[in-house]
């Protein structure tokens, strides 16, 4: 048995594996980065409803279902990544077209995410630094992550996830003295329709688990633990979406939240512990940057897998470099201004831009069932 199998006593499995806990943390990291920065649980509807916390609690169902479908696909086609079982399901020609579309979508989403975060950094602190500097930095981190395969991304998430969870928990707890629960009462004052509208944002954020699972679940070292990993990851995300919405609403109220661009960051600025520990937003940002790196790494990793599935002779390193450059260029032109980024988190735009990617597992599963295709592994 090769030396690098030390620690995995099951022959025939590759070293590029992740544990269920690492998958869970990948899910958490992918969500946490956007939750902390753009707070979609309150920004998807303007003004947000007072029951935004309730909206987050009911928004998990579609995301969990789609994620489990992605896991089911990984189990059905064990030993194959998403691009490989696309070929199995749709055949070589149609599969190539679908893979190409998936690659384009992953690149697009990577460009959007990169743009989101680079504009965020440029807007809140480094006002005179061009956003492209932050884009380059994020892409360098993501490039390093994606070049080291899924195992590296899993381990990075294993580190970044708990840090982000801890930082966010600290933020929530530290803001308890600033909370006024009168701002969230009475419950359901605006009705269930408003809650449902508010729930679109969190639902789409949680729905991101679908493409995360599609890319990462095939590499689980024990596929039976997939539901546990995805469920726990979504559960943690739901908790923070809901608790975050509650705290933000109680601290700022709906009117102020309607005009704050980065409510979570603003809440961090209010934290004062013992009159000496203040201005913790930098601590939050430092903890959160690792989570961003995980998310963009995964997108680049997926895009690279897709390109190499279409061009098997291509060197993975060169492909990854090309992918990163494409994302960099694309991120410079997509979402040109900060208002455009903020508008992205409105419910109607979230549904338009990201839901198609999240429905991919559903489409693949339906086609696999209709054609009766199974994996050989």
């Amino acid at each position, binding site marked *: *048995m*090769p*030396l*690098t*199998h*030390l*620690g995995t*006593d099951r*022959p*025939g*499995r*590759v*070293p*590029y594996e992740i544990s269920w*806990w690492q998958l869970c943390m990948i899910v958490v990291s992918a969500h946490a980065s956007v939750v902390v920065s753009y707070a979609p649980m309150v920004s998807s509807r303007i003004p947000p409803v007072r029951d935004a916390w309730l909206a987050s609690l009911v928004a998990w169902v579609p995301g969990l279902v789609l994620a489990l479908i992605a896991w089911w696909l990984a189990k059905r086609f*064990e*030993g*194959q*990544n998403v691009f*490989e079982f696309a070929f199995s399901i749709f055949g070589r020609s149609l599969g190539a077209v679908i893979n190409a579309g998936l690659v384009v979508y992953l690149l697009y989403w990577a460009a959007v995410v990169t743009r989101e975060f680079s504009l965020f*950094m440029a807007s809140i*602190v*480094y006002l005179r630094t061009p956003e492209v*500097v*932050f884009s380059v*930095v994020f892409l*360098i*981190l993501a490039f*390093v*992550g994606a*070049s*080291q*395969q899924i195992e*590296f991304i*899993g*381990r*990075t998430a*294993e*580190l970044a996830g708990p840090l982000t969870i801890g930082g966010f928990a600290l933020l929530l707890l530290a803001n308890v003295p600033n909370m006024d629960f009168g701002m969230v009462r009475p419950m359901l004052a605006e009705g269930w329709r408003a809650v449902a509208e508010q729930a679109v944002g969190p639902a789409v954020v949680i729905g991101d688990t679908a493409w995360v699972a599609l890319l990462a679940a*095939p*590499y689980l070292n024990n596929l039976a633990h997939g539901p546990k990993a995805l469920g726990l990851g979504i559960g943690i995300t739901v908790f923070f979406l809901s608790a975050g919405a509650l705290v933000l609403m109680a601290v700022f109220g709906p009117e102020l939240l309607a005009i704050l661009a980065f409510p979570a960051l603003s809440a961090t600025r209010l934290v004062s512990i013992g009159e*000496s520990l*203040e*201005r913790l937003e*930098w601590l939050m*940002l*430092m903890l959160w*940057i*690792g989570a961003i*790196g995980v998310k963009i790494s995964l997108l680049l990793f997926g895009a*690279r897998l897709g390109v*190499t599935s279409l061009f*098997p*002779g*291509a*060197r*993975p*390193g*060169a492909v990854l470099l090309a992918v990163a450059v494409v994302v960099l260029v694309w991120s410079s032109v997509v979402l040109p201004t900060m208002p455009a980024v903020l508008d992205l988190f409105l419910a109607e735009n979230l549904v338009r831009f990201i839901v198609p990617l999240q429905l991919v597992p559903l489409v693949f599963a339906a086609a696999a069932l209709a054609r009766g295709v199974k994996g050989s*592994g």
Partner: protein
Amino acid sequence: MRGRSVIRGLLRAVFGGRRRRRKQGRDGPGPGRRPAALPRARAGGPEGPSGPGQHEPDRTEGLTGRAEGLTGRTEDATNRAERLSGSAERAVKQIQEAFGHSVELVARTFRTARGRAAAAVYINGLVSTPSIAHYIIAPLSTDRDADEPVAAEKEPVRTLREAIQALTSGKCVLLLEGSPAAAFDVRSWAMRSVDQSEVEPSETGPVESFVEDLSTNIVLIRRRLRTENLQTERIIIGRESRTDVRIVYLRGIVRDALVEEVRSRLKKIDVDTPFDVHFLEEMTTDTPWSPFPGAMTTVRPDRVAAMLTEGHVAVLIDGTPMVMIVPGTLAALLQAADDYYSNYYVASFTRVIRWIAGLIGLMASPLYVAVISYHHELIPSRLLFTIAAAREGVPFPPIIEALLMELAFELLREAGLRVPRQIGQALSIVGVLAIGDAAVRAGLVSPLMIVIVGISAISTFAIPSAALADTVRLLRFPIILLAGVLGLFAVTFGLLLIMGLLIASRSYGVPYLTPFLPVSSRGLRDAMLRMPMWLQWYRPWQMVNPGRRRQQAPGQMPRPEPEEE
């Protein structure tokens, strides 16, 4: 050209693993496919049993017929494989020609009591000449019934190479007309006695330290592990030095794959002289471009013995007291032997202090630069006024101030290592008090900068592994530069890159951040905190055979005996 090769090397550091994995499929295998065996760390030299890193007793196969290699060595190497002549006189000539008629080579010819020509060949200074006279020459010269000398250890010598190896190892080669030659161990040379370690001092535990003599070092380990399972394998490395290298491990505990990996990597080394274990480490590491040490090194026998029982492999090299232990992980590099000689609360506290010290050593100066340059809002108001007042008149920006002071510290530290001990102490006092104080008085730096540099310097000294401490000091500089360019964001970026490097690194296949990443609950019992000995039931699982993971019976927590009714 050099720049291009450097860039190529850096790119290979990123893509290099992918290039090897291309053999398995462009993206590595998909999930679930069995890969080809991943290549071992590259070392110079050809593969195969005829490489220069020979594994004893493979003596007759040499470098004959190798087309590659250093110019002019092939023919020379071929001659060494020739058999020794059966005639004592001719054999003496063979050996003298091989050594270039060196004056240290002594060939004492004599006739045995039976009238046979004989010669005792040895290198003066490496042997005990009275022993040769008393136990080798005298019995043969005087006793007609004696066939061979009285000796506890006798080794047949068939070829010139074997004769050279024996002579340079301090043995006497006896050439007897009509009989096979043999080597007898009569080693006796000046060597340092076992003393306490200066580089790894101990407060409460044993103070013995390894010495330059390999045999003595093996004995120091054997005294602590009195088991037949303690295996030592010998490898000769170095075309010119023929250095004796030993692989030491506990048979049955350590994974065979790990031992085989160590063996094969060492055998591939093709150099003139391996100077030290750090040389071997660089030539066999999994991550050749990483600044982090790929293995542990120690001069303490107790530490080696403890590591061997955990399933590590030790590599000893003749001529240096340093021993290399593989695999090396970050957690192990931050552990000290004294952790096991004190109470577990104290040991855990000390370990946490070391981790904090490592972070402070790396981040203190960069954080100062970042906060003072870009993030004043992070500083409490009163402290901000104090800092502003202290920095008033300092002509340099914080990044220059920090780089100047860090460089000055490094200069003082390096100078302190080179000067004689008596002056070294005075130099450190002069450096810290006089130069630092003068710099503040002259307004070149702020007092806070002196404090920060002093704290980060002291913090690096708290790291038990000198190699890791050096790495931390080295990495501090690029992080300071990043801090000066883009503040805390860039510091975080740099930190994440370092973390990425650590996450991606392995040491002989074991992830470098074990047991933190990937998380191993059993390993965490003796990582940052030290659980009580009665709770450490398991060895680190990555290195040991599955059947030997348990290292002690459970339920040994001391309890008062129940009172008899």
